[in-house]
């Protein structure tokens, strides 16, 4: 097992290098640091001196790939590629364009993100699975048909409307919880309710429909027929046999997204003013802070790859037929 994991991690390395190259190309070759400086300084008629000071302040004044002036090994290390891209591998994110330490910010903002993402995931899972199970229990009736119509309709509504609607209904009309903001400690609870509810409701449509197909796939299997032939009740068949087997694809799907929970929910966080990583990213995009965007791209890819490995491992854990090779 550990040999397998090690090998998978080694496979991940070239992928991360690829990600790094793509971002490097996007951020430094397509547009020179001069262009970025001009954009940041915001004026068309900025002097070359102003651009040079900005670049020097932010460490963009070095050559891109090869520094001919420095001798020996430093000719490779004293470059933008090394300073800005390769250092990401050591999770050394450097400073944002506004001068803050990105690593520190990420550690701080991780917690609010998780505080929203984990309850949303768990509550969403519980509701979706039980709803899907109920639909399957009443399959081929009007409850089934009506639910599917409802789910498709829910899927067809943009997430933005759930957020706006939730904020308007719960926050503004009934004054139950604050509309947006965040606080530390237990005080945060009242700020968390609304984003979690909105996140859960927005996700019900697609996930319940997906789980319903998982259940329906299982329900036509031979072992289910055997269980019925034994004289088991429908409830026992559903809960003891179908649910357990259908949980395999559901859980492995969840495992794949677990690491990405760190990244936070982009839109929900920025809408509700939660200082998590999602709103951090959005703010960075709006402020055009390239360092943060670059760091988040790298972090996201790392987490995605971890998710892939975890999925493979979880398959072997829940389904003994699958062997790691």
């Amino acid at each position, binding site marked *: 097992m550990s040999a397998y994991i090690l090998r998978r991690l080694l496979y991940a390395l070239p992928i991360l290098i690829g990600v790094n190259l*793509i*971002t490097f190309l996007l951020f430094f070759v397509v547009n020179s640091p001069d262009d970025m400086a001009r954009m940041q300084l915001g004026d068309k008629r900025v002097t070359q001196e102003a651009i040079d000071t900005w670049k020097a302040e932010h460490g963009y004044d070095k050559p891109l790939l090869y520094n001919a002036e420095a001798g020996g090994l430093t000719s490779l290390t004293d470059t933008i590629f090394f300073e800005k891209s390769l250092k990401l591998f050591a999770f050394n994110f450097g400073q944002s364009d506004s001068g803050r330490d990105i690593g520190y910010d990420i550690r701080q903002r991780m917690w609010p993100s998780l505080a929203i993402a984990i309850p949303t995931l768990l509550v969403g899972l519980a509701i979706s699975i039980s709803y899907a199970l109920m639909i399957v229990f009443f399959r081929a009736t009007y409850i089934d048909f009506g639910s599917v119509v409802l789910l498709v309709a829910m899927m067809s509504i*943009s997430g933005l409307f759930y957020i706006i609607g939730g904020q308007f209904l719960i926050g503004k009309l009934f004054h139950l919880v604050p509309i947006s903001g965040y606080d530390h400690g237990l005080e945060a609870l009242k700020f968390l309710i609304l984003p979690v509810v909105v996140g859960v409701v927005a996700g019900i449509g697609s996930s319940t429909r997906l789980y319903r197909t998982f259940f329906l796939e299982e329900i036509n299997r031979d072992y289910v027929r055997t269980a019925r032939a034994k004289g088991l009740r429908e409830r026992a068949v559903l809960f003891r046999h179908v649910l357990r087997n259908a949980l395999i694809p559901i859980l492995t799907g969840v495992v794949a997204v677990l690491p990405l929970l760190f990244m936070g929910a982009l*839109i929900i966080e920025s809408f509700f003013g939660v200082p998590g990583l999602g709103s951090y990213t*959005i703010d960075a995009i709006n402020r055009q802070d390239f360092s943060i965007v670059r760091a988040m791209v790298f972090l996201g890819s790392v987490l*995605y790859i971890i998710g892939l490995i975890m999925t493979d491992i979880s398959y072997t854990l829940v389904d003994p037929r699958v062997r790691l090779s």
Partner: protein
Amino acid sequence: MPVILITDALIFVLIAVGIGFGLYAARHEHLRGPWRQVGRSPVGVAALVVILFYVGIGLLDSLHFHPLIEPVAQTAPGAPADQSADGQMNGTAQQVAAESSTDQGAVGQGEAPGSRDPSAAAEPTYSTQIISVLDLWLSGLRERQEKTFSAPFATQLFVKEAIEQSDGSVIRGYPRLEHGGAHLDDPSQRGVDILLRGLFGMVKGLIAWAGLMLTLVAMLALRWRQTFNDSASAIWRGETEAPWRVALSVLALMLVLSFVAAELAASYHILGTDKVGEDVFYQSLKSIRTGLVIGTLTTLVMLPAAVILGIMAGYFGGRTDDVIQYLYTTLSSIPGVLLIAAAILMLQVYMTNNAEQFESLVERADLRLLFLCIILGVTSWTGLCRLLRGESLKLREADYVQAARSLGVRNSTVIGRHILPNVLHIVMITVVLDFSGLVLAEAVLSYVNIGVDPTMNSWGNMINSARLELARDPVVWWSLAAAFVFMFTLVLAANLLADVVRDAFDPRLRSAS
């Protein structure tokens, strides 16, 4: 003078591809059968009619041209016909310009001098603005701008202003709208007026529908070699193979709705006006093209790469497979939103630094739309590529492929003749399934400011600008509601159609149910 924007050209390419594929599918039973099944499903047909309605509007909005500036009649400036024509054209130029600047008056005046030049009367002069056929059709809606917000069907502005009374005193109140309900002497007659106009529109819609229906039934009767009455009654009782009754009812609904809307929109702002006084109904209609372009062009852009690479990876295996797998794993491991954000940021940097390359705002917005499609395509081709790789891996081992190879048929021929036709159904399912997701993605991306150009009409931009107004009391809800209704209808229809298409093409599901 016609103008072909890049996305327009690609839309025409897409239509050509679609027609070509349709002709191909019609001659091949394994593709024709499932489509026939889609055509027999009432839900599928209803969704198709709705989508065709949207596509029609989108196509009208894709025929762009520089409007002709009519020379001002020099002999009789007082002639009412000439006056109104001149006003209309000026208004046209003015409105397009207003998309980018709120200072419409100045821009409108700026457009005028060119047309007043006497020498211009000899040969036609064209405005520098680009408008579409839809704009021309809706020029009434486009020109009737108010000062700022007004509620749907309102006759008065939504915000109070200082109004000068006839006796010279100034009071604060809600001034009458310049256009919405301006034909009414007394705003209290509004209800009756709306009802009458609505009924009139409904009658018009029904007449149009009846005309269409009669032609359709007559054509079907010819094809079925029946009398007109027999086919009409078969359709009425729902006994036809294809659900013509459903198609005709949905068509009736859509026609009546659009005629009522058209009738009412001629004298009211049926969905209100936004902050700069633009008609929200007009914005919603213009947004249709943006949504459709994002939903379809993205797939068109990604298809060649996904199909070629996916099949190559599966068919050739070995080193090719490794490289292609590496490529798509790398791309898919970057979170999509961040990749799009990074790419759009870079495009913005490029556009601010090379502003002189873009002749007009419309072209700039159009290029950004295309770029967004490409980037969305880059992030979304990996799923299809993986599916195709798996399928061609399986097909490579099939007997007929092995036989062809051992007979010495060239690889390209094997792929073209044996592999590609057998994976087409996967391509089709993916195209249809992706559409609704892409339309929804546009709204979210525009909200984060990494979507389409802010000057372009899109549902995302409508939501984005409207959400800031929710804090007002009473709430300005109509922009949101309009974007919601238009988007929901399209996405729901697309989702329902996708379900039907998937059921028809996926043999595994067919046996399960």
